[in-house]
């Protein structure tokens, strides 16, 4: 397991997966905001997209602009094979960490499974 993704990175990657062919900067920003249920700065999303692309988790291509954006092009993102692996790894780690607990946690930590890992 090479690189564990942070929560925000996972939110951005999953937004790219959800948006499929329509995954460009502004659409990703809105998707991330909707999923995290909070305002997110455009700069944060763009910095994360750049970082994930540098790591090889995303690939991008430039597509045509529209009138509302004064004809400026859009950069469309798509998940790479290593991005998919990283997301799967992140999910596997989370599952492993939560294994044996009921969610949401209450005052006394309820175990669903008395057996230890392994």
């Amino acid at each position: 397991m090479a690189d564990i993704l942070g929560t925000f990175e996972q939110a951005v990657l999953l937004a790219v997966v959800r948006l499929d062919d329509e995954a460009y900067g502004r659409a990703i920003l809105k998707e991330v905001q909707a999923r995290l249920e909070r305002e997110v700065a455009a700069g944060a999303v763009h910095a994360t997209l750049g970082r994930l692309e540098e790591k090889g988790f995303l690939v991008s291509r430039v597509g045509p602009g529209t009138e509302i954006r004064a004809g400026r092009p859009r950069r469309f993102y798509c998940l790479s094979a290593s991005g998919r692996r990283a997301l799967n790894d992140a999910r596997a780690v989370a599952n492993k960490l939560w294994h044996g607990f009921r969610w949401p946690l209450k005052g006394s930590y309820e175990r669903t499974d008395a057996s230890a890992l392994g």
Partner: protein
Amino acid sequence: MNEPTPPRWAETFLRLLLNSRDRETVSGDLLEEYRENIHPQRGQGGADRWYLSQVAGFAFRGNWLWAALLSGSFITRTALDWFVPPSNFYTRSFVSTWLAVAILFCAGFYASWQSGLLRSGVLAGIATTLFSAVICAVGTGCLLAIRHDAPTLDAIQGSGGLAEVFTLPLLLVIPGTFLGAVGGLMGGTARRF
């Protein structure tokens, strides 16, 4: 029909902050969000404020490291002068001055090397000093809150007084602009090779 437009100078600022690869796409994303979502919801003033906050976010992300280094060196120097006052300030002045020069030069160099524009270096110099001034004001205030006994207050007077500590970081915007420009010139030139 005329589409609503964010302040022209803010758009220019934003484009200077972005590298050449993202300049059109990212500024297009912000313009689209401004016109399609923010302006109809918040009106011209609110949308302009939103746009400015986004540009400030880009400026901070691009320059926080330089601002942290500059303010860190300034606060360290201030702490030494207040808590371990020297008999002669020359060595400390020499070191802190040239450290600040190097940081501001690097900020300009890196910004122009990324964007390919000299103006990005100038903007990086200005942004770095402004963000640094805010951090310095907070940091110096904390130092004062931690220790304000009589010997410390004497040392503060002996090192130039409180006014200097709070105004100097802001005055650095002038040499910061110049050094950012010099760094930007070198960074822009280095990018061509």
